[in-house]
């Protein structure tokens, strides 16, 4: 939707995008990344080899997206992020594993049930794993979980920044594209890639990307349009490609179509568009 088609809106929350990283990984690439002893670049410390062993594939991709964001920022060390929060918005975490787990329960009863289901496939799991790997002590929270997880994640992250609960937020959005449809063995019925987008957000007006992420309320509901990792990344890349330094663009909505996620130009300290 172009800006001119957007109905009147009122800004609710905004944050500056300091940096972002997008990965689009096939399952073999995720399996390879899972085994890395150094999920984040130096000077970040190596993790225990078991940290991601049982994690969902979306969680592994989320870590890869954070790594790419750090590389895009020039590999800063952990100290500047020690108090940052983590908000992770995944879609249908654990679906492929749950096919196998549920059918195994039907065959074997309770002794066949893995103890890893809640720690690694419940909504909190991705945020918890990211927090563990980043090693910071800011809060971590899962958001969304379903088709409209993206807007849930944006709303949550911007709320944290607005309340000054944290000095910055790692907002990570993950999803399969197309959506993962597992067979009885948990394998995908059609080729699919896991998309993961990490955004380093601060409460300022204009980050290094000269772009802001906004949550706005529309006067009239629009057709619901999920915000995914790929959609936001595409918006940011298009922003750069067009060298567009002013204006704003709606890139998705919540499930009602009333609350919109937008990208907008950053502002300089005096409040003028850069």
């Amino acid at each position, binding site marked *: 939707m172009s800006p001119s088609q957007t109905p009147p809106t009122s800004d609710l929350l905004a944050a500056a995008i300091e940096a972002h990283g997008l990965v689009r990984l096939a399952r073999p690439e995720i399996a390879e990344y899972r085994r890395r002893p150094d999920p984040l670049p130096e000077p970040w410390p190596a993790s225990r080899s078991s940290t991601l062993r049982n994690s969902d594939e979306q969680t592994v991709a989320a870590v890869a997206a954070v790594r790419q964001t750090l590389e895009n920022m020039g590999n800063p060390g952990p100290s500047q992020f020690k108090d940052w929060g983590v908000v992770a918005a995944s879609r249908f975490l654990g679906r492929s594993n*749950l096919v196998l787990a549920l059918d195994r329960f039907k065959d074997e009863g309770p002794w066949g049930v893995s103890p890893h289901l809640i720690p690694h496939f419940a909504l909190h799991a991705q*945020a918890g*794993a990211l927090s563990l790997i980043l090693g910071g002590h800011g809060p971590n929270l899962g958001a969304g979980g379903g088709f409209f997880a993206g807007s849930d994640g944006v709303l949550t992250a911007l709320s944290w920044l607005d309340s000054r609960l944290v000095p910055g937020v790692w907002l990570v959005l993950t999803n399969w594209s197309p959506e993962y449809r597992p067979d009885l063995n948990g394998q995908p019925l059609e080729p699919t890639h896991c998309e993961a987008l990490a955004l380093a957000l601060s409460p300022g007006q204009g980050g290094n990307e000269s772009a802001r992420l906004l949550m706005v309320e529309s006067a009239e509901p629009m057709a619901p349009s999920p915000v995914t990792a790929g959609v936001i990344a595409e918006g940011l890349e298009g922003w750069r490609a067009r060298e567009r330094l002013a204006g704003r663009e709606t890139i998705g909505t919540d499930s009602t179509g009333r609350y919109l996620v937008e990208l907008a130009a950053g502002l300089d300290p005096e409040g003028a568009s850069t």
Partner: protein
Amino acid sequence: MTGIDPRRAVWITGVGLATPLGHDFETLERNLLEGRSGVVAVSSFPTVDYPSRIAAPVTAIPCPPSQSPERFGHLPRIERAALWSIESALRDSGWWDRRHEVHVGLVLGLGAEWMELWEVDRLAGGDRVQDPAQDERSTLDRVRAALKLNGPSVTVSAACAASNFAFEIGRDWIRRGLADVCVVGGCEMAVTPVGLATFGNLRALSRRNDEPARASRPFDKGRDGFVLGEGGVFCVLEASDRARGRGANAYAEVAGFGASSDAHHHVIPSPDPAPASRAVRQALRDARVEPHEIDHINAHATGTPVGDAGEAAVLRLVFGEALDAIPTTSTKSMTGHLLTAAGAIEALACITAMRRGAIPPTINLDEPDADLFLVAREAMPRRVSTVVSNSFGFGGANSCLVLRSV
């Protein structure tokens, strides 16, 4: 919508619940103060092969007045618990019939939504877990539509700390003017065949199967794990000036919030009390209270050997000698562990202490195993004004809520 005020006082003006100890606040208060246990032998499915065969389940969730009983009976249990408790909270606050006049937000703490929905369907022979097209609408979407709520809404989970985070997000939305009224809380219905098995195989649950009512034993030497509970518990938040202006009944002020992460392990709490103490200190600062001004602590304490000892160390680090005069309890001894709804039901236990002038006890506390001023076995008469409620969770999530009487 109203203007922005980052220090605006936010009050709880309505409550709604579906819990192992009752589906209305009066009943819950009575059961908490009488020290009754909601823990029973699980009877809704065969448990002979389970390591833990006990739980605190929710039974017979009432149909809220706005819903058709026939349709309601066919809804997933999560949705039934959420609908009943959210509508009850809005009715209790006086906003139900006027909800179209204001922006009503919803912050839903819910951690294992899809697992629970996929499990029920799969065990009944369905293929929902293999078919994303059946998952287009989340519980949040369905509840918001069924109750005609028109404000911002979000599903969140920090595992067992989720509800406290919901309180904070809702408070911010009120202060920021995103919502005029906000329903916050948690809902989890994990007493299912696979739910009980996965927690049991994690060796997190008590195996005191022969004595269900005595199994949940926070801070007791004989504790051997938590007891799985379930339920939905929600509170209505609104700005104090709005509540005062309409003569609303106020239960408490949401005075402070703090949160942190251990960054230690996926499920094991950090042996270092510093990260969790940071959450408690942040909440006290936010509420502008000193440790000695706290009248009561509702501990997270689930009844695990490591977790309870760790929390006692956290409290000692934050409160120092003042802790010796602060009555501390764990109501999970009666309710079991409601997971994402735990923080919300424990907020109601704190309100109970304020309203009734008596602190709910930690039952089954035969041999205290913590250097705390514990409210053992019977309710303690006490004037309570400012309360700390801790909720910690998997993923190393720590949270602390400060509630103040109004």
